């Protein structure tokens, strides 16, 4: 499983990007998905530095291929109020898909699913469905559809 209900955080309040990323790192550490909180955070930030992962209005997909990560996992956070993601397009972010992948992982089924997810996020109808999520099961069902493809 790439994501369980415990990795979904709906209607949260954070003041900026770094707070969200630190929160995800904290949760991942508590859930034994990673073995180094600050390394994951730094890898997230390094990735954001290459270019922002706020790719469309409303959506960010921070991701880290990090030595801190033990197994590929997905985290989902939705926000009560949109925040700035420090993106050059000035996008305001309301939903966050955080992708955590071990450094050496490539070509596996999990990677295929995460790539498919990224690709689906470019679809207008999928985006709408994502913005409307107010229950954990809605997200899990959306992701199930991707896994079946």
């Amino acid at each position, binding site marked *: 499983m790439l994501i369980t209900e415990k990795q979904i955080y709906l209607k949260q309040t954070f003041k900026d990007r770094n707070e969200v990323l630190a929160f995800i790192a904290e949760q991942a550490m508590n859930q034994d998905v990673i073995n180094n909180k600050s390394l994951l955070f730094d890898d997230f930030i390094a990735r954001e530095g290459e270019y922002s992962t706020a*790719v469309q209005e409303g959506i960010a997909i921070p991701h880290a*291929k990090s030595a801190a990560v033990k197994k590929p996992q997905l985290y989902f956070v939705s926000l009560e109020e949109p925040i700035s993601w420090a993106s050059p397009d000035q996008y305001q972010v309301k939903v966050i898909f955080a992708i955590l992948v071990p450094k050496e992982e490539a070509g596996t089924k999990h990677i295929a699913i995460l790539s498919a997810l*990224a690709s689906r996020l470019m679809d207008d109808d999928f985006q709408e469905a994502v913005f409307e999520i107010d229950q954990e099961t809605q997200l899990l069902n959306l992701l199930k559809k991707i896994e079946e493809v």
Partner: protein
Amino acid sequence: MKFVGITSCIAGLAHTPMAAKALEKAGDKLGHEVKIEQQGAMGIVNQLKASDISAADAVIIAADQSIEGEDRFKGKPIIRVKLGQVVSNGETVLTKIVKVITEKTQSSK
């Protein structure tokens, strides 16, 4: 017009497929044929055929690292674009590319 292209990002996870999708989507909307090969964490996805390349008016490369098999595009006009821009504004980027290629072909006539 017909385009082929490559997308490739360092992690190969998200921007590679997203940029490919953005360009193909922009192609559909603007009425151009766009076929993109992804070079990412899944290896090579949607590999371009020699026939795709020879039929193309131009090659779009959206990569933040060196790509595999660039020699396949010898003799074709190559346009390099920024990955992030492609993902955020696929249509704007493709419109610009079409303009550049149109001007190039006109000036060479």
